[in-house]
C-alpha cells in the first residue's frame, strides 16, 4: 500500500473539504439540536452529499456507486468529522452498505445498494442490546415461521434507527447470549408490524434509537442462518475503521482550534502558548495525532487490499484514535479555560462526540482486549 494519496483521492478529499466546510459547519449541528429536528440530520444536505457521490463511495459502479473504496470513504468521513456533520454516512453508507457487500445476495445488493448510493434509502443496523458494545451478547430471537422468520427482542443504541426505512437486525436462531454461533442477520422493513422505535436524545446531538421487535416478520436473511456472526464481525471491523477516520477528523479539528487559541489568548501580558506547561502537552498530543493518522490510513488500506490483518488493524485504529480523541477533546476544553465549558463555544460538541464515538462499535478497553486476543496473549 501507499500512504501517499493518489491524484483521484486528493481531488475527492479537496471536494469533500470544500463542500462540508461550506454546507455543514458545526453551527448546523447546533441548529439541528436547538430546533429539535425530527430527522436529526438535514435531508437536503444528505441528498446533496449523495449527488457528490459520498453516499455510495464504497459501492461498486455496477450497483450505482462510485467504487472509490474505503480509503476514499475515509477521506470524506475525516472531513465530516472536522465539522461534526450529522448524516447517515456511518449508519448507511459505511455500516449497512458494508454488511450488504459482505453478506448480501445478488438480489439484496441489486435491490438496496443503488438506493443507498442515490441517497434515497437510510438503513440502520440493530445489534447491541446493552450499555456496551458486545456483538455476540445477543438475546433477541428469530424463530422459523414457514418460509420466513419471526423476530422478538429489544435493541439499543441503533444509529439512525428512528429514521431508517430498512433495518439489518442481528438475532439468535440458536445458542445462547455470548455464543458467536447461532446468530443470523435479517433485513427487516422498519414499517413492518410489531416494530416500535423510540429516539434517544444523545449527548452528542446525533441519532440513536431503541427498537423493539414484537413478533416481527423478517423480509429476508442476510447471509446464512446461524452464520451471521462472521458477516457481522467483518462488517463491524470496516465500520470501526471508517468511524476511526471520522474521529480522527474531529480530533484534528479540536486540536487545531486549541493551538490557534494558545497563540491568541493573552494572560500575564503574554500569549498562553508561550508557557511550557501548555507547550509540552500540545506537543505530546501532536505526536499522538501523528500516530492516529498512520493507523487510520493503514487500516483503510487493509480493507481495500483485502489483507489478512483487518481485524487487528481495526482494533488498533479504534483504540488508538479513541484514546487520543478522548484526551484531545478534554485537553481542548481545559486549555481554553472558562470559555471551553460554555455552550456558546463549540468545543463542548467535540468533547461530547468523542465519548459517544468511543462507545460506538467498541471502546478503547474493548479494542485493547481484542488486540491482545488476536495477537495471542
Amino acid at each position: 500500500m501507499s500512504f501517499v494519496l493518489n491524484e483521484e483521492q486528493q481531488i475527492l478529499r479537496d471536494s469533500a473539504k470544500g463542500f462540508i466546510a461550506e454546507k455543514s459547519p458545526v453551527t448546523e449541528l447546533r441548529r439541528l439540536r436547538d430546533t429539535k429536528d425530527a430527522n436529526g440530520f438535514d435531508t437536503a444536505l444528505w441528498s446533496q452529499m449523495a449527488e457528490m457521490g459520498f453516499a455510495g463511495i464504497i459501492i461498486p459502479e455496477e450497483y450505482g456507486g462510485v467504487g472509490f473504496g474505503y480509503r476514499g470513504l475515509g477521506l470524506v468521513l475525516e472531513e465530516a468529522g472536522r465539522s461534526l456533520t450529522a448524516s447517515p454516512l456511518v449508519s448507511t453508507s459505511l455500516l449497512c452498505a458494508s454488511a450488504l457487500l459482505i453478506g448480501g445476495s445478488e438480489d439484496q445488493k441489486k435491490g438496496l445498494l443503488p438506493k443507498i448510493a442515490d441517497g434515497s434509502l437510510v438503513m440502520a443496523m440493530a445489534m447491541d442490546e446493552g450499555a456496551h458494545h458486545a456483538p455476540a451478547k445477543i438475546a433477541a430471537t428469530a424463530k422459523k415461521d414457514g418460509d420466513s422468520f419471526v423476530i422478538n427482542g429489544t435493541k439499543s443504541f441503533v444509529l439512525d434507527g428512528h429514521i431508517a426505512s430498512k433495518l439489518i437486525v442481528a438475532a439468535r436462531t440458536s445458542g445462547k447470549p455470548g455464543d458467536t454461533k447461532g446468530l443470523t442477520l435479517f433485513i427487516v422493513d422498519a414499517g413492518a408490524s410489531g416494530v416500535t422505535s423510540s429516539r434517544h436524545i444523545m449527548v452528542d446531538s446525533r441519532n440513536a434509537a431503541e427498537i423493539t421487535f414484537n413478533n416481527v416478520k423478517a423480509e429476508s436473511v442476510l447471509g446464512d442462518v446461524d452464520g451471521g456472526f462472521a458477516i457481522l464481525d467483518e462488517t463491524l471491523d470496516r465500520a470501526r475503521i471508517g468511524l476511526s477516520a471520522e474521529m480522527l477528523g474531529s480530533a484534528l479539528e479540536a486540536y487545531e482550534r486549541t493551538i490557534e487559541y494558545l497563540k491568541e489568548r493573552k494572560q500575564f501580558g503574554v500569549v498562553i502558548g508561550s508557557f511550557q506547561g501548555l507547550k509540552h502537552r500540545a506537543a505530546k498530543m501532536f505526536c499522538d495525532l501523528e500516530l492516529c493518522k498512520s493507523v487510520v490510513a493503514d487500516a483503510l488500506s487493509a480493507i481495500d487490499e483485502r489483507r489478512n490483518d483487518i481485524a487487528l488493524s481495526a482494533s488498533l485504529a479504534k483504540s488508538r484514535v479513541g484514546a487520543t480523541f478522548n484526551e484531545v477533546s478534554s485537553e481542548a476544553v481545559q486549555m481554553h479555560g472558562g470559555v471551553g465549558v460554555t455552550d456558546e463555544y463549540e468545543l463542548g460538541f467535540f468533547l461530547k462526540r468523542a465519548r459517544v464515538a468511543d462507545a460506538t462499535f467498541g471502546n478503547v478497553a474493548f479494542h485493547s482486549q481484542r488486540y491482545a486476543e488476536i495477537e495471542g496473549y
Partner: protein
Amino acid sequence: MADLEAFRKDVQAWLEQNCPPSMRTPMPDDETVWGGRNAKYKNPESKQWLDAMASKGWTAPTWPAAYGGGGLSKDENMILQQELRRIKARPALNSFGLWMLGPALLEFASEEQKQRFLPEIVRGEIRWCQGYSEPGAGSDLAGLQTSAVLDGDTYTVNGQKVWTSYANHADWIFCLVRTDKTVKHDGISFLLFDMTTPGVSTKPIQLISGYSPFCETFFDDVKVPAGQLVGELNKGWTIAKRLLQHERSMISGMGLGGALSGATGQTLAGAAKEHLGEDNGKVADPVVRQHITQHNMDSKAFALTMRRVQEEAKAANDVSATSSVFKFFGTELNKRKYELLIESMGTKMLGWEPDDSYSAGEIDNTRSWLRSKANSIEGGTSEVQLNIIAKRVLGLPD
C-alpha cells in the same frame, strides 16, 4: 519496474555469493563492527563481510559513487534493504560516520573534503566520534565554550567535551567549537580533527549500566589545519542542527517492535507468559497484560508512522520537524519496553552478574534497561524535543 526486478535478482545473486554464513546469524554484542584504524574482528567473517559490502559502496547505499557510496536510488536501496532483511544479514558496519557525519558532509563540505573523508567512512577505515556536549552546555548546546583560535592557517583548540560516544576508540572527531565569543549561535564552527593530535585526551565515564560507552574528552592546545573546518566560519550551528536530526532519527528506531534486543530474544508477552504464567493462552496477570498490549499497540502505530512519514517525505520534501517526533516518541517507547520487562520478569530481570541462575542474555536485558535511560537524554532530551515540536511545528512562541 523491470529494471528494479533485474536489480533485485542481481542483489540476490551477489548476496548469495558474498554474505558469509555466520553473517546471517543473530549478532552477539561483542561482534558489532565499528571499523577504524584499531578495529579488532573477533569473527574474521565480519571483516570479510565489511570489505565485500564496502567494495559495492553498500555500507552507504545512497551516497554518490564518486565518494565511494553505492549510488543507489531510493527504490534500489529499498530493495537492497529488503534483501538484506530477507537473509537476516547483520549490519556490515555501525558507524557515526555513516549515520551522522557523512550526510552532513554531503550537504555542507567542500568537494575536497568530500573526496578526502567520505570514501574512508564507506570502507570503515576511520572511526568517528562526535564532540558536541560540554559540562556547561547540555540541553543548551549552543552555549558551548570549547574555543578554536585561528593563527595563520592553523586553529588552536582548547576546552572540554563530555558524553563523547566511544571517544577512546575513535580515530577522528567532528567537533563544535567557538570561533566568536561575542555572539551565541553565530559564533560556532564545525571542525574535524585527528584524535591522535597532540593535546587530545579521553577519560571514559562509567554509567549506571556498568558500561562506559561515553567519555570526557579534553583539548589542550590542539593544532588543527584550517582546511578541516567544514562550511563557513561561524556557520557551524546550521550543520550542527542538521546533524542532530540525523542523530535523532538514528536513536528513535530503538523503541520498535515487541522483540527484545538482548540475547533472550523473547517478546514482552513471551517473557510475561514464562514468568507470570498463562491463563487460557493469556498472560495470567491482567494488569501486566494490559500494559503490554498498550505498549505493543503504540509500537505498531509508531512503526507505521515512521513508514508513512518516509513515504510522504519522498513524495514531498522536508522531514526536519518530524525527527523530533520520532526522537521523543521512540525513546520514551524504548524506556517503557524495559520497564515492562522488569514488570514481566520480576527478579529475573534484576541480576547484575551472570551466574547459574542468571544467563548472560538476562543480564544483557538488565544492562539494556539501564542503558535505555540515556535514550531520552542523549541527542536532545525529551523535553527539548517537545520544545522543538512546539516551536517549529506548532509555531508556539518562546
